[in-house]
Every structure is written in structure tokens, then in C-alpha cells.
């Protein structure tokens, strides 16, 4: 029954164990804290969804948050009490970002909800038990917190040869599993038996390091007593024998394929803590609401293991264990090799917190200054993954990411063995993390660019098809316009446009609101997924990393789509608002109103179509979130996105037609329909070309190396030039025509056009200002929280400022009485490049600021790292400065012109 491991793994280290300190005292039961803080994301995957409300009274073991998607988990009240708060709070996570938590105030009754153990579990199917485990909130308690039901569900598709129970606990200082095995031996063995029933393995192996003789003895005894079919295999004490991959290699000699999962080679690995939680859930009907945590470190005088309800603040435990705040230098959650530091002792214990290490300065001294790598190869001798850490360092430093990948950077489990032995004190793992994240970002960007390309092609085809259609419509409109002049006197048409405009305004507002909510939701989900991803990466959980990366890419796409929608809707609603405002004074011009009403109806129709398309997209996306692999759904989603784009386009067209009609208000459409149509068309084309160019520029600014984008910008510029030319031609025609009519027209028409335009310009300006103020506020908030969106917001802000400037400019122009249509149109032409320049300038400024900030951050992070990282950044800085200077020069040039 007791065996020595037959296999070994490459490398490994023997750091001082420091385990005896926390084993002097028996398992402690600290008093209940005043508040239990329960983060919704205590596991890998989607954060749970709250089931309770503030003020609600809950019983011990009552579910307070539920699964939110496939990879998610339930959460239960650790004791009875009242929910006093559901808000963001600091949580134990390497990122240091706050997260939504449910705060429970215990009533000290500790009153259980009715428990429902699965007494007859042996007769139940695997699916039923897995379902039960899921509702009991069981997650892997070894480190990453992978929902157990997900791991076990994977076993249904594979035949499981070995069920491996990880009892190695190789990290220095931590003794939580050791204590658990001593105290809950029988529960552990019975929990394993449940897992055996579920996974039906050929063999069940417990891997334990030989530095836990007491636990080994008790396990042996318990296995014999319970007649369990389990082999206990003792492995030599060596870090990181408790790493999942290393333990598998030690016990079976097999290796988990790179990028694969243990289940691919017929192995399931579970931590001992998880097994006990399974026992509690199945035999006792108790959800996962407490865990054993090691309190250790020299800043604590009563080092020990404690069994604590989840949500207990770390500060409460530190106090209980009698710690000395003046001695505390570094507070580590987890062990010294792979744990992470926290800055705030108010964070709670969560399902994965296996150790709280309160270290003094002497115990974990500050790292020695980094020296040059002398290629001594000690890191290679220590690396359990069989990598060449020194080569990876070299490639990471020189940003040769393809070489780093080729040297299997992504097989690094970030165990820290290399950093531990490095005589030059190089923080190797830190370099690898940095490179990994850079590579990942680049990959995501590439995926995005591909998507953009597909979308661009589709859009191009669509626009071409639409051009033909539009032409047909225009013919029809012309006929209608001609007809409407004859019906000019008919009063029945009067109220219609107003109402239409008003309805579409409120429509647009609702859509806008909805979109905003959706955007916020998507952003939250995205942030969450990113955080989880980081956790997964840090724990080396390649499987989760893969799923999460997929999720993130999807979410990002979704977010982008929503943002785009939002933007266009914003513009729309502004249009519509203006239309409503403008509509009233127009009522005395029935002729125009009649034709406006036609287009207004079209606008409305287009809006409805857009709303419908958005809703069905949302539906599809929701479904897709639940079943992310469904190809059919994905296709549907793409189709919907397409439909929305179509609808947006139609709407835009309708609106443009409407605006044009409004603008044509003063002219006498019956007399020069052909020419003004040509003019109209030219203007529309120009506007479209400008927007496209702007969009392309923006994209290019975001991704300056994209050849495709560059090409697109060039073609856009060409189109714009062509459009301008056409406009000019049309204008000259128009002018000549106008001159012949001037005498008849002047008195009646010019004035109202101008007042209307003036009004609209004023409204535009006010809107732009308000919008920018909002952005400013958002920036402030973002700065406070140091959110990644900051750069984007700043860009938006700059662009907004530019817009305000142009608007002010045109307003001024109008006030000065530049009333002639032709010069005004020309002005727009001149304005456009200037505006573009301003936007470019603003963008360049924002980019520069971003780089500067990043450099500053790096500098703060420490001189050594700065040396490496600022290299690339400095280049970037120079680039940005160049760009800024160039745009400034251009601006100056165009101004003198």
C-alpha cells in the first residue's frame, strides 16, 4: 500500500521548508468575525450571480450566489446572519483590483439551513452527483479554484486510468493540507471514494511528500480501516513536486501534453482539500463554506492552522494569531514561491486561500539588486519544465517573442525555481510573465484584425449593392418631391413630421440607454474574464487559460460592436433631437414638411429595424455565452451583426436624406431638382468618404503597423478627394443656377436656412460640450481607479475637444454672416482636413501621454526592470513625439493656408 515514487522530474529545488512553525499548535477555531466578505469570484471562470438582497436574512449554508455560466460556481452563507452590503471590495488577487462582494453580518446563531446529504450516492449516476457538487459550490482548493464539476464533467468523455490525489504540498511554510490530512483523514478517504465512484479510475493514487510522516501514518491506517482501494505513494521532498504536472510525472511517469489537460492522458488530479469538501457535500450535505488556512511567518507569534469560515478578513485572523504590525514587511497569500503579496489586510479568506504568510524583513528580505546573467545554467538545472530559462530571459529582454515562444515559453509553469537559484538575482518569472502577456496581447490583436478584415470586405460589398439601390430610391424621391409641391397646401401632413421626429427621438434615447447598459455589462464581464485569465495564467492552468482567452476575445468583439452601435446611436439621437427642435419652426413650410415626412417615416422604419436587429443579436449572444462552442450560433451572431450594420446604414441614409431635405428647406426644390440632387449626392458622398477616412485613421492610429489599414486609408483618401471634386463641380453648377434665380429666391429663403443652421450649430455645440464633460468625469473616475480604459477615454476627450472647436468655429462663421451656401460648403471642405488634423493631433497627444504614463509606472516599479522595459517604451515615446510634431507642423501649415 505504501510505495515510493518510481519516477522523477527534471530539476526542482530544496528551499528551506519552514513548515514546523505552524504545526506546533493544534487546529485553531478563531472567533467569528463581525463581517464576512464573500467575493463573487472565488474561482476560475465567470463570477457568481447574487441570489440575495441587502437586508435579507440568510441561514448558514444557504446559497447566496449562483452559477453564472458553465465555468462558474455557487456561493453559500458561511453562517447565519444579514446581508448588509453588496459592493466592490478588496479581494485577495494578484491584480489588487477590487471585486463585487456580498457582505454578511453574522447573527451568531449559526443556524443551519436544512441539509440534504446524498445518502444513497452509490446508487446515483455521476451526472446527478456532479450536479449536486456544483450546487454545493465545490472548487479546486489547491490553488486556482477550478470548479470541480467542470473538471469531473471532463472525465465522462474519457476513460480515466488514474485518479491522483495531490497531497504533496511542496510549497514552503504551508501546512494546511498536512493538518487537514491529520484531522480529517476518514473524511478525506471517503471523499476520494465518492470521486472514485464518479470517475471510475483504474487506479487511485495519493501522492504525498516524505516530510509528512504523521499524515502518511494516519492515511495508511484509515485506508486500511475503510478498506479503500487507494495506493499511497511517497515522493521525495522537492519543490515543485506538488505542481499538477510534476506530480503526475512522479506518480505515473506520464507527461501532460503541452497545451493539453491531464484528462487527455486519462488522469484526473484533485487536491486533498477538495476531496474533503466533496465528502462534506455528499455525506453531510454541507456546501463549501469554510477551509483550513495556515497562518505563519515570523510576524505572527502564534503560527498555526485555523479552520475559518470563508469571508473572514485576513486582519481578523492576524489579530487572532497575535501578530506584530511593526514587524510585518510582506504579507503573502499562498507560499513564498508562488504566492502573491497583498497591500490591504482587509481582504477576506476565499475558497483558495491556503496560507497567509506574514513575513518580517529578515525572513523574506528584499531581493538583491539584479546582476547580469552569466549563463551559469543553474536555472536550467532547476527548471522542472525542462526549459532553458536563461535563453528565455535573453529573448524576453530583447523582445524576440517568436524565439521565446519557440523555446516553449508557454510551458513555463511560473514555479519560480529558476529565480530562486539564480546567482544574479534576476527576477526571471517576472520577465516571463511580461513576455507572455505581451505575446497574448499581440495574438488577440491579430485575431481582431482578421475579424475587421472580414467585416470590411462584407461592408464594401454591401455598400456597392446599396449604391445601386439608393440610385433607384432617389429617382422615386424626386418624383415624390415633385408631387408634394403640388400637394403643398394640404394641412393633414402638418403634425406628422413633428410626431415622427419626437417618436424617433424617444426611440433613439431608449436604444441609447439600452446600449449603454449593455456596454457596461460587457465591460464588466470582460474585466472579470481578464482577471480570471491572469489568475489562471499565474497558476499555470493552461486549460482554463485557453477557455478564458476564447471568452475574452469574444467579449471584446462584443464590446466593440456595442460601442460602435452606441456611437452611431448617439449621433442618431443627436440628429433626431435636432430634428425635433427644428421641426416646430418649420410648420409654416408645408411644402418641405410633406417631403420630410416621407423620409421621417423611413427613418423611423430604419430605427425599428435596427432595434429589432440589436435585440436579436443580444439574444444570440446570450445563447452563445451559455454555449460558447455552438458554431451555428456564432454564425447567427455574425449574421445579426451584419443585419445591424445594414440597418444602421439604412438609417443613416434615411437620416441623411432627411437632413438634406431640411437643408434644402429654403431652396425651391421644384425648380432645380436635378442640380440640387447632384449637389446632394456629392455632399452625401463627401460626408460618407470623410467618415470612412476618419474611421480608418482612427483604426490606423490604434494599430499603426497594419499594412491593410494603411492601404485602406490611402484608398479612402483617394475617394475623399474624388468626392470633393464632384462636390465642387456640383457647387459651381449650383451657383450658376442660383445666380439666375437669385432675384426671386433671396428675400424668402436665405434667412430661414441660416437661422435654422445657426440653431442647429448651437445645439450641436451644446451637445458636444455636454458629452465632453461626461467624458471628463469618466476620465477622472478612471484615473482614480487606474482603469485601462483611461487612454481610450482621453482620446475620446481630445476628439471631443476638437469637435467642439470646429463647431465653435462654424458657429462663429455663421454669426459673421457667411450666409452663402457655396462658401459655407467650401468652408466645410477646408474644415475637414483641419478637423482631421486636429483629431490626429489629439490622438497623437493621447498616445504620447499613455506612453509617458507607462514609462513612469515602470520607473516606479524599480530601476532594474525599468532598464529593460523602458528601452522599447522610449522608442515608442520618440515615435509618438515625432508624430505629434508632424501633426503640429501640418496644422500650422494648414492654418497659414
Amino acid at each position: 500500500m505504501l510505495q515510493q515514487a518510481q519516477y522523477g522530474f527534471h530539476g526542482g529545488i530544496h528551499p528551506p521548508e519552514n513548515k514546523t512553525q505552524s504545526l506546533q499548535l493544534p487546529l485553531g477555531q478563531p472567533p467569528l468575525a463581525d463581517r464576512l466578505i464573500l467575493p463573487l469570484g472565488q474561482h476560475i471562470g465567470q463570477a457568481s450571480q447574487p441570489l440575495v438582497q441587502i437586508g435579507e436574512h440568510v441561514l448558514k449554508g444557504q446559497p447566496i450566489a449562483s452559477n453564472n455560466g458553465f465555468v462558474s460556481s455557487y456561493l453559500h452563507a458561511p453562517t447565519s446572519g444579514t446581508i448588509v452590503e453588496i459592493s466592490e471590495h478588496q479581494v485577495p488577487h494578484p491584480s489588487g483590483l477590487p471585486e463585487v462582494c456580498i457582505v454578511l453580518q453574522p447573527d451568531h446563531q449559526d443556524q443551519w439551513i436544512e441539509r440534504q446529504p446524498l445518502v444513497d450516492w452509490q446508487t446515483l449516476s455521476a451526472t446527478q452527483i456532479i450536479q449536486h457538487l456544483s450546487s454545493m459550490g465545490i472548487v479546486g482548493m489547491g490553488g486556482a479554484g477550478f470548479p470541480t464539476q467542470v473538471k469531473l464533467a471532463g472525465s465522462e468523455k474519457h476513460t480515466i486510468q488514474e485518479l491522483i490525489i495531490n497531497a504533496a504540498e511542496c510549497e514552503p511554510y504551508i501546512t494546511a493540507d498536512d493538518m487537514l490530512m491529520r484531522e480529517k483523514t476518514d473524511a478525506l478517504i471517503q471523499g476520494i471514494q465518492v470521486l472514485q465512484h464518479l470517475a471510475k479510475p483504474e487506479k487511485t493514487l495519493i501522492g504525498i511528500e516524505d516530510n509528512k510522516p504523521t499524515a502518511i501514518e494516519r492515511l495508511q491506517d484509515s485506508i486500511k480501516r475503510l478498506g479503500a482501494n487507494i495506493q499511497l505513494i511517497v515522493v521525495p521532498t522537492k519543490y515543485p513536486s506538488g505542481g499538477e504536472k510534476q506530480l503526475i510525472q512522479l506518480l505515473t511517469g506520464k507527461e501532460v501534453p503541452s497545451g493539453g489537460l491531464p484528462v487527455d492522458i486519462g488522469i484526473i488530479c484533485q487536491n486533498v482539500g477538495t476531496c474533503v469538501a466533496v465528502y462534506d457535500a455528499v455525506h453531510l450535505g454541507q456546501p463549501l463554506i469554510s477551509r483550513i488556512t495556515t497562518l505563519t511567518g515570523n510576524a505572527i507569534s502564534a503560527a498555526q492552522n485555523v479552520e475559518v469560515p470563508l469571508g473572514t478578513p485576513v486582519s481578523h485572523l492576524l489579530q487572532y494569531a497575535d501578530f506584530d504590525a511593526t514587524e510585518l514587511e510582506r504579507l503573502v497569500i499562498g507560499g513564498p514561491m508562488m504566492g502573491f503579496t497583498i497591500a490591504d489586510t482587509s481582504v477576506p479568506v476565499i475558497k483558495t486561500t491556503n496560507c497567509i504568510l506574514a513575513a518580517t524583513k529578515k525572513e523574506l528580505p528584499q531581493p538583491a539588486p539584479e546582476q547580469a546573467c552569466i549563463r551559469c545554467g543553474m536555472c536550467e538545472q532547476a527548471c522542472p519544465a525542462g526549459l532553458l530559462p536563461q535563453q528565455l530571459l535573453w529573448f524576453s529582454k530583447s523582445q524576440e517573442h517568436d524565439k521565446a515562444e519557440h523555446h516553449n515559453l508557454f510551458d513555463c509553469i511560473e514555479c519560480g525555481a529558476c529565480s530562486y537559484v539564480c546567482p544574479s538575482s534576476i527576477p526571471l518569472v517576472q520577465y516571463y510573465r511580461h513576455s507572455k502577456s505581451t505575446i497574448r496581447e499581440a495574438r488577440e490583436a491579430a485575431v481582431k484584425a482578421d475579424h475587421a478584415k472580414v467585416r470590411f470586405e462584407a461592408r464594401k460589398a454591401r455598400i456597392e449593392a446599396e449604391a445601386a439601390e439608393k440610385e433607384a430610391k432617389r429617382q422615386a424621391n424626386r418624383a415624390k418631391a415633385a408631387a408634394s409641391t403640388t400637394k403643398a397646401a394640404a394641412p393633414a401632413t402638418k403634425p406628422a413630421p413633428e410626431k415622427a421626429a419626437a417618436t424617433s427621438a424617444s426611440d433613439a434615447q431608449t436604444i441609447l440607454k439600452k446600449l449603454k447598459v449593455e456596454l457596461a455589462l460587457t465591460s464588466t464581464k470582460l474585466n472579470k474574464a481578464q482577471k480570471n485569465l491572469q489568475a489562471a495564467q499565474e497558476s499555470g492552468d493552461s486549460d482554463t487559460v485557453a477557455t478564458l482567452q476564447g471568452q475574452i476575445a469574444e467579449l471584446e468583439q462584443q464590446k466593440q460592436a456595442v460601442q460602435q452601435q452606441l456611437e452611431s446611436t448617439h449621433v442618431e439621437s443627436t440628429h433626431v433631437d435636432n430634428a425635433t427642435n427644428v421641426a416646430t419652426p418649420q410648420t409654416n413650410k408645408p411644402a418641405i414638411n410633406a417631403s420630410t415626412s416621407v423620409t421621417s417615416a423611413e427613418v423611423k422604419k430604419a430605427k425599428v429595424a435596427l432595434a429589432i436587429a440589436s435585440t436579436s443579436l443580444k439574444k444570440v449572444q446570450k445563447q452563445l455565452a451559455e454555449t460558447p462552442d455552438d458554431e451555428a450560433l456564432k454564425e447567427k451572431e455574425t449574421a445579426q451583426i451584419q443585419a445591424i450594420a445594414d440597418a444602421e446604414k439604412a438609417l443613416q441614409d434615411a437620416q441623411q436624406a432627411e437632413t438634406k431635405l431640411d437643408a434644402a428647406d429654403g431652396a425651391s426644390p421644384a425648380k432645380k431638382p436635378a442640380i440640387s440632387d447632384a449637389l446632394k449626392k456629392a455632399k452625401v458622398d463627401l460626408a460618407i468618404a470623410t467618415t470612412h477616412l476618419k474611421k480608418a485613421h482612427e483604426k490606423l492610429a490604434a494599430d499603426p503597423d497594419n499594412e491593410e489599414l494603411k492601404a485602406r486609408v490611402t484608398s479612402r483618401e483617394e475617394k475623399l478627394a474624388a468626392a470633393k471634386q464632384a462636390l465642387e463641380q456640383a457647387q459651381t453648377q449650383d451657383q450658376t443656377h442660383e445666380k439666375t434665380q437669385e432675384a426671386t429666391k433671396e428675400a424668402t429663403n436665405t434667412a430661414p436656412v441660416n437661422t435654422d443652421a445657426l440653431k442647429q450649430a448651437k445645439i450641436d455645440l451644446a451637445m458636444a460640450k455636454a458629452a465632453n464633460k461626461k467624458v471628463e468625469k469618466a476620465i477622472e473616475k478612471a484615473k482614480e481607479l487606474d482603469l485601462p480604459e483611461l487612454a481610450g477615454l482621453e482620446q475620446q476627450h481630445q476628439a471631443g475637444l476638437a469637435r467642439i472647436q470646429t463647431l465653435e468655429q462654424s458657429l462663429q462663421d455663421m454669426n459673421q454672416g457667411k450666409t452663402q451656401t457655396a462658401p459655407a460648403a467650401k468652408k466645410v471642405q477646408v474644415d475637414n482636413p483641419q478637423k482631421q488634423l486636429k483629431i490626429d493631433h489629439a490622438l497623437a497627444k493621447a498616445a504620447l501621454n499613455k506612453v509617458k504614463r507607462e514609462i513612469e509606472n515602470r520607473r516606479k516599479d524599480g530601476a532594474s526592470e525599468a532598464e529593460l522595459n523602458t528601452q522599447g517604451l522610449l522608442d515608442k515615446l520618440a515615435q509618438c513625439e515625432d508624430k505629434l510634431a508632424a501633426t503640429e507642423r501640418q496644422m500650422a501649415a494648414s492654418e497659414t493656408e
Partner: protein
Amino acid sequence: MALLRITSPHTQRTGHRTAWIMQMVILATLPGLLVQTWLFGWGTFIQVLIAIATALVCEAAVLKLRGRSIMFFLQDYSAVLTALLLALALPPSVPWWLTVTGVAFSIIVAKQLYGGLGNNPFNPAMIGYALLLVSFPVPMTQWFGAYEVTAANEVMAFTDSIKLIFTGAIEGAHAVDAYTIDAYTMATPLDAFKHKEGLMSSEAFATLPALQPANINAFFWINMAYLAGGLFLLYLRVITWHTPVALLSALAIIAGFFYIIDSSNAASSWFHLTTGAAMFGAFFIATDPVSSCTSNRGKLFYGAGIGILIYIIRTWGGYPDAIAFAVLLMNFAAPFIDYYAQPRTYGHKEAKKGLKTGGDNP
């Protein structure tokens, strides 16, 4: 409470700093230095002092020019080690300015101009050595003979050694021939064997003074001393066995092969391993981590390459010993070898090769 926030790992092996590694290598050369001094007089010892002083001055000067912290980098002992290794490789009798030139070139050009410790593609000590050998072939190939077989029949006195090194001549009672140092010097066994001028091996061993047992034994003991130092480094895990074992075996095998084919003209493996600088080169020069291969498999190829090159240059090249050139040539190849000798990573079916991505489907 201002808590320190840094990423894992939070702990480090204590006492194994870069300086410690350098110190251990320096310590491991001491048996060799002692034996060399014991058998051939104070020359080497004085050269070592000159070299170290030069190295420290050069290193400090360059660091100052480069605006680096002088004390921080001097304390890594790498300059001292480079100087020491070069001095040990030099003939004991070379004039002081030659040592100074060699060391200065090693430190300033071969090391600091490439970016300092960790960035030099070539072994700095061997660059210095090669420069001197090419520029000053005569003093660089004169070696003291073991005193039993020289005309002087005693090791040179300390004061004489100093005079010789700093003035180029010695005089006085101790010298049999007052104005020449020929009394003390003779070719090294390797050199003598190389230039046996048509003699059969057996004749050469019977007649040439440099090939007398006393002289050969002296070199044998020096090699044994370096072997002991090398084993000490292996024991401390400062170096791994791969390079020295590959180097010595390759040298022994190729020498053995030719000895079997033509024993009347070729020297035996044993002669090759124990009369030149084979042990010194294998344990102290080829193992210089910065300029050698870095993966275990790479080190095997690298060491074997040096061993083979040593034999080729010794036998058919223009120089009696060949450690420096062999090592420098393999320094060239080291990065390339590293790309093709990657270890198999956990979870991969086979090791990756080269630099191209793709091709590996685990």
C-alpha cells in the same frame, strides 16, 4: 502599514551569488597555482598579481566611463577571475608589459566593449591570450622547465623572477648563465614533441630534454592539481560535468585513434591529457559560462568540439598548444549549437531545434 508588493517568488537561495561562484572558481585554481609555483618558481605567482591589479584598474576605469557603479560591478569578482585565468595560462617568464597588455585587452575590449559581464561572446581571457600569442610568439612559447632537467637545476629565486619579469634579465649568483634565462627555460613537452623533427616518438622521448620524465611529470602534476580543482567545482555544482567530460573524452578518443594507427609518430591519449593545458582548459576555460553553450546537451557538443579542435591544432596546426584557439572557435559556434541542442520540454514529444517555429506537434 506600507506592505511590500512584489511578484513571486518571494525567497531566494542565500549565499549563492554571482560573486560566490567567481570566488569558488578562483579558489579552485589555487592547487594549480601552488603546484606551478612549486615546480617552476615564482613566475606565475607574480604574473597573477600583475594581472589582477591591471584587471581591477581597467575594469574600474571602463565602468567609470560607462557611468556604472564601480563597486557594485567590481564586487562580482569576474575581472579578477579573468585576469587570474590569463595569468595562469601565460608562461611564467613573460615580461610584465606583456601581461598588462593581455589583461587590458581582455577586460577592455573582449569584455567591456561587448557590454560587460554576461554579454561577451568570447572568453575574454582566451582573447587576451590569443592576442599575445599572435603578437609576441617568442616570449609566449618559452616555458620554464622543471628544475631537475634545466641547466640551472633549481627554481628561480623570487627576486630573480621579479627582476626577470620587470627588467627582462637576471644576474647574480643564482644564475648559471648570468645574462640569459635559457638556463631555466625549455620547450614544453607538447612543443618539443611537435618539433621533434623527424624523430620517432621513442627517440624523441629518449633524447629531448623537454620530454624527460621529470619534465613530463611536472606537467602531469599541474594537470592533476587542476583536475582536483575542477572536481571541487563539480562538487559545488558551480559547473556541470558535461563540458569537461566531453572535452577530455573527445581529446582522448581522437588521440587514441591516431596513436593506434601510427604509434611511432603520434602521441598517446595520456600524453595529450596530461602534458599540456588540457585539464586547465577543460575545467576552467571551456566552462566559462558566459561564452559557452548553455543547455546540457549543447555543452556536450561544445566540449567535444573543443577536444577535437585541440587535437587538430596541436597535431597539424602552427601552435604547440591549442586551448585558446579551440575555445574561441567553439565560442563562435556556441549560440548556434544552443539553438539545436535544446532540451525536450515537459509535455513535448521531442526537443525543438533551430529557431523556426512550427514543426513541433506535441
